[in-house]
């Protein structure tokens, strides 16, 4: 009797953990699993879209679920790939991650699916299609939404500086900064700066300073092409010079201000490089009478042509674990058709990566109600994502190391820092 009891107990002990590994959310021939972002607005979007699909498609249903909680969605996806528990469809994939997954062979080559290229060409510019093309020539991601990085500015402070518009060029920026900078409490140290950007060396911080400024200056030039660094050029050097001067003259603070009360809304700084997510935050927390607006990134004085910026694109992918990739694509189409895009805008205030969205009358009503989002929509024609490279994080890390040495601490000339970063990236490709 005792032995039987021990055996049963052991079996239960073994079975329980195994059972807990099985989420009960496996896809099948008749059901697709879709992981959306875990913010409440996107969950609402996924819910509505899925309900609509399931109503019209009784053969194959879709089950949506927010990406499981973790330190970051990137880590969760990585864990799912390793554990072969990926969903069929995942939205919110950072464009910079796709190449590594594509090379690992875990994503469906979408250009092999019926109707994909036709749909994509209708939705996106050829520039965007080329941008998302992987190094092997296939396309593994569907451009979904963007958050262009722009210059937010305090309108009243600009008016106090005698201007109705924010600085457009580097010279303007320096002039405004010099006038604005102040030692408010009189302790001999500047405590009001024209702008602020995180001084941390973390690779992705450069998406909010160096990279959008580089894209603006260069007209959207890449950092890497294939396995070669292509940023050792006048644009990168100009951007390093510009940013270095901001820190040298103390127009930007070297201190980490992010742990404090919002420095933009508390008027300690007048500008910041940021994305459209700032609108909801600012509208919620701004003091009475505080007015702000957005403008394109500053550019070198002799700049001509459009002012590009970084779009922080989040895209949709279909994993190879999907048993019905063609059906998955049919479902994804409903997320990104005009109706889906409008719903995304209305529910989440995030910008779909759709050509001419700023002039398409279908979205006009939304932009009339949300004029600040219209500024981002106007910018959306001139955004870039990231270059196709499986080692993009290392590339940005190497740039960030040189950025810190040159821009923040002035220990290298901009020319030397850009050259060293470029050489280090080329060395990385050789390894």
């Amino acid at each position, binding site marked *: 009797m005792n032995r039987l009891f021990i055996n049963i107990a052991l079996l239960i002990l073994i079975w329980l953990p195994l059972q807990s590994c099985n989420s009960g959310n496996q896809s099948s021939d008749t059901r697709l699993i879709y992981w959306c972002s875990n913010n409440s607005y996107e969950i609402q979007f996924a819910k509505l879209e899925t309900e609509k699909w399931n109503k019209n498609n009784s053969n194959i249903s879709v089950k949506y679920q927010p990406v499981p909680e973790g330190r970051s969605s990137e880590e969760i996806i990585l864990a799912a790939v390793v554990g072969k528990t990926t969903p069929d469809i995942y939205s919110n994939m950072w464009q910079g991650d796709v190449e590594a997954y594509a090379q690992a*062979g875990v994503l469906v080559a979408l250009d092999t699916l019926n109707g994909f290229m036709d749909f994509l060409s209708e939705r996106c510019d050829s520039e965007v299609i080329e941008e998302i093309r992987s190094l092997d020539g296939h396309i593994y991601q569907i451009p979904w939404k963007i958050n262009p990085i722009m210059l937010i500015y305090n309108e009243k402070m600009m008016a106090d500086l005698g201007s109705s518009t924010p600085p457009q060029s580097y010279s303007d920026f320096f002039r405004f900064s010099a006038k604005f900078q102040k030692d408010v409490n009189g302790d001999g140290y500047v405590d009001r700066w024209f702008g602020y950007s995180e001084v941390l060396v973390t690779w992705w911080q450069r998406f909010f300073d160096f990279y959008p400024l580089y894209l603006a200056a260069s007209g959207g030039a890449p950092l890497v092409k294939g396995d070669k660094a292509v940023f050792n050029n006048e644009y990168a050097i100009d951007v390093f010079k510009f940013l270095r001067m901001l820190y040298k003259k103390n127009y930007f603070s070297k201190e980490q201000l992010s*742990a404090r009360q919002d420095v933009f809304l508390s008027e300690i700084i007048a500008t910041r490089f940021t994305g459209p997510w700032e609108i909801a935050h600012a509208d919620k927390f701004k003091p009475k009478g505080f007015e702000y607006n957005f403008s394109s990134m500053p550019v070198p004085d002799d700049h001509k042509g459009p002012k590009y910026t970084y779009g922080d694109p989040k895209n949709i992918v279909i994993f190879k674990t999907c048993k019905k990739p063609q059906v998955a694509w049919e479902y994804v189409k409903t997320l990104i058709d005009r109706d889906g895009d409008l719903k995304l805008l209305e529910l989440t205030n995030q910008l779909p990566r759709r050509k001419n969205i700023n002039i398409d009358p279908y979205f006009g009503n939304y932009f009339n109600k949300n004029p600040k989002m219209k500024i981002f929509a106007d910018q959306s024609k001139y955004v870039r994502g990231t270059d196709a490279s499986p080692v993009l994080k290392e590339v940005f890390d190497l740039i960030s190391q040189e950025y810190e040495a040159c821009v923040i601490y002035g220990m290298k000339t901009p020319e030397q820092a850009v050259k060293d970063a470029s050489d280090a990236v080329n060395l990385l490709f050789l390894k």
Partner: protein
Amino acid sequence: MITRKKILPYLLVSPYIVHFLLFVAFPVVFSIVLTFHKWNIIAPMEYTGLNNYVRLFNDKTFIKSMGNTLIFLVIHIPLQIIVALFLAEILNQKLKLRGVFRGAFFLPVIVSGVVVTILWQQLYGFDTGLFNRLLTGVGLSKVGWLTDPGIAMISIAVMATWKNVGLYIILFLVGLQTVPAQYYEAADLEGANHWQKFFKITLPMINPTIFMVVILSTIGGFSLFIEPYIMTGGGPLNSTVSAVLYIYKQGFFYYHMGYAATLGLFFAFIILAVVMIQKKFIEKDH
């Protein structure tokens, strides 16, 4: 015939054996295998021979991170011992509210490292931090506690000392209370002053405790991670990148698993060597 009596002991130790094999033996063996491979988790492993080891000895940032860890240890360990011993001496006297003070000094030990780090980040702030306000209040210049590459690691060492000192105060208190009172009485009769008693009686008598504190601080110092990870991210100019932080970045930022395993293995041998040297000293002392 195998009897139940013979099986039972094995059955009882089996959970530990399974745990050991799964979570200790397998990861160690797997890590050693990894050092000869390139692996980013999602793609299949690629055999690279000794490449990771060659890279390690040419990796300037790793060498710098080892140097940073050494700087941290050189500041942190003596500071920890001096402060802990000084406070333990005071708390060993018959003070009013002695229990409250002992509790207060121990409090940071049980507070989360992340919370302490964020708190000190505020104290170290250049413009609004309390320390710089105090300095400017008495007419001195502000200090870039976390932004000056020459000072940042010292700032982290001071914070780590504050966080851990309570534990070492307790250890020293135990050590101090084992010193027989008659030694001090004899010294008093001979006319010894306080310092003579401290250096001639207290210090030699608590030597084993000091060695224990050195070993514990060394091991704790080698694992420096949370403080630079949260406060500085390893900056400025890599001046606070500790060896563990660098290994973590290689493994979990860039998914260079083979290289991270190589760094980890190398670092484990360094720790082993240091602990062996310390052990020799202790044995010699005994």
